[in-house]
């Protein structure tokens, strides 16, 4: 079973953003799948690195769209992006350093991390960009 399922309610109504959200969900799910297989430490690191790069690009695009449309909560949303980037980097370091690490924990973290952004900020963005 996938860690996260795409739901139409996640749509922010911007084709490019939705497209990347779907791609990211695919990537997170794939990472999760690898995580559940034994002996896949290296592969998981690779996936986390890829998620980090993709999400960085995704946030950059979202920020550009928000700026172009004078989104009123730009600053909060941007701060949240930076926080989320910090968090996935923390997860990567946790994994790499092998401290306090468990597969289940990472899966949970990934899910919370990803869904949190959807629920709070992107949902509001959706309502305001229409």
């Amino acid at each position, binding site marked *: 079973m996938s860690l996260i399922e795409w739901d139409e309610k996640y749509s922010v109504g911007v*084709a*490019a953003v*939705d*497209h*990347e959200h779907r791609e990211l969900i695919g990537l997170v799910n794939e990472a999760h799948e690898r995580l559940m297989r034994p002996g896949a430490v290296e592969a998981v*690191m*690779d*996936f*986390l*690195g*890829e998620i*980090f*790069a*993709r999400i*960085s*690009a*995704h*946030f*950059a*695009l979202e*920020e*550009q769209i928000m*700026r*172009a449309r004078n989104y009123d909560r*730009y*600053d*909060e949303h*941007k*701060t949240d992006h*930076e*926080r989320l*980037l*910090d968090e996935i*980097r*923390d997860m*990567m*370091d946790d994994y*790499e*350093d092998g401290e306090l690490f468990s597969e289940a924990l990472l899966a949970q973290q990934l899910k919370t991390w990803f869904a949190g952004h959807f629920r709070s900020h992107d949902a509001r963005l959706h309502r305001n960009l229409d």
Partner: protein
Amino acid sequence: MIETIQRAGRRAFSLIEHAFDAAFGPRINPLYHLGALSFFFFWVVAASGIYVYVFFETSIDGAYRSVEYLTHAQWYVGGVARSLHRYASDAMVISVLLHLAREFVLDRYRGVRWYAWLTGVILLWFLYASGIGGYWLVWDRLAQYIALVTSEWLDWLPIFAEPIARNFLNSASVNDRFFSLLVFMHIGIPLFLLLGMWIHILRISRAKTNPPRLIMIGTSLALAALSLVYPALSQGPADLDTLVSRVQPDWFYLAMYPLIDLWSPGAVWALAGGGTLLLMLLPWLPRRREEPAAVVDLANCNGCGRCFADCPYSAVILQPRRDGLPFESQAVVEPDLCTACGICVGACPTATPFRRVSDPVPGIDMPSLTTRDIRARILAATASLTGKDRVMVFGCRSGPDLASLREPGIATLALPCVGALPPSFIDFVISRRHADGVLLAGCVAGDCYQRLGVEWTEQRLAGQRDPYLRRRVPRERLATAWVGPSGATTLAREIAAFRARLRAMGPYRRGPAPPPAAPASHPPEDRDVSYRVG
């Protein structure tokens, strides 16, 4: 030959620059703002010129009288305005010539930069034509001299049906309408100069047309003081029935005039024309081949526009998406404008060393030193480092020479520009413990060879410009040394001090996450991300 001149020139400029750096600090060193200063002087000349024009009478008798009135009866405003008009024009000649000389000795005129150089050289003629026309209008003895010599000079060209010098042989032949024409030209030519100045900076993004405020204030005060202490004066009324025997020319504008008499108009045409032609051809003597231009990889580009926003040369543009993916735009590089500085890569969110899946190509990359190369070279350079004070030094090719830093504990990597380093590489080196600290070395702040590399880097580190350096990266493990190409000694000293601090810190340990940043008011992005069709 050219390189010898450049080397000598660099040494000379460097001496003066260091003196100014010591006096004012590099950020308000006027030598790093010569182009912007020239714009500033233009505006001072324009503003004071408008005031003088209000009182100026466009007639043979009125011209001299009205200027005298301004200088003496209205010395506190009119006199100051006249003097500002004169001295700011002179200052503009100085700043423009220094600007030209400096860009030449720093080798910032060839390759992609030929356009600004060529247009700048043409502007010299407009600058001189603007200034000389002004001396004419005062209609004093110097003006009479200029009128005669200029017309002799122009008459040498076979373009006028009858010699215009004949107009200045006696007072009967100069009429008031001729003065109206002169005024018209003295306004028209500077307007063309301004238009040319705009064309001159077209190909660079975020051209600095205003010097830092402190420089503007200081320069204005100096000009005002000069105007009050040594007001510009006329040299007695012109009288076409007598021959001018002695004048005190303004050497900033009229240095060539004695030569017209001394040699011949033709010789001075040859000198001025030949000199201009030589200057214009300079970028191709020889031409510089830039490194291969930046390359966009569409599979990794979502059109976020960060490279477009950061490119100092407007070489990256955004165009409507063409590969069918549901993004609005894609980055496109115009190779003719690209200096291969790599600042676009430093801005690209996908240029990160943490990527390892298959072939981690970023959205935009430099063929001569790819993101993957940078990662590999960091790993290779840091692999042999030992101790508690290991430093990874990132430098730029135009900054201090890194080759002299070869000693145990120091790894170096020279980038085309320090702005080409994506901030996540700093995070990578420190958090993955490839070194205990990172030091960025580059051009003097305010005088980046690639224009904006140092500025963008500082803003990225401070979280004011995308991509931010992650807040978790302990800032005490990061140092910058903007020392310029002649600062190798200073750099070595700063590295030694940095390593001492690192030794005292002990090895890197991840601390608790820093408190979330308050959603500080974000500095507005001053470059609109919108389409430009190229």
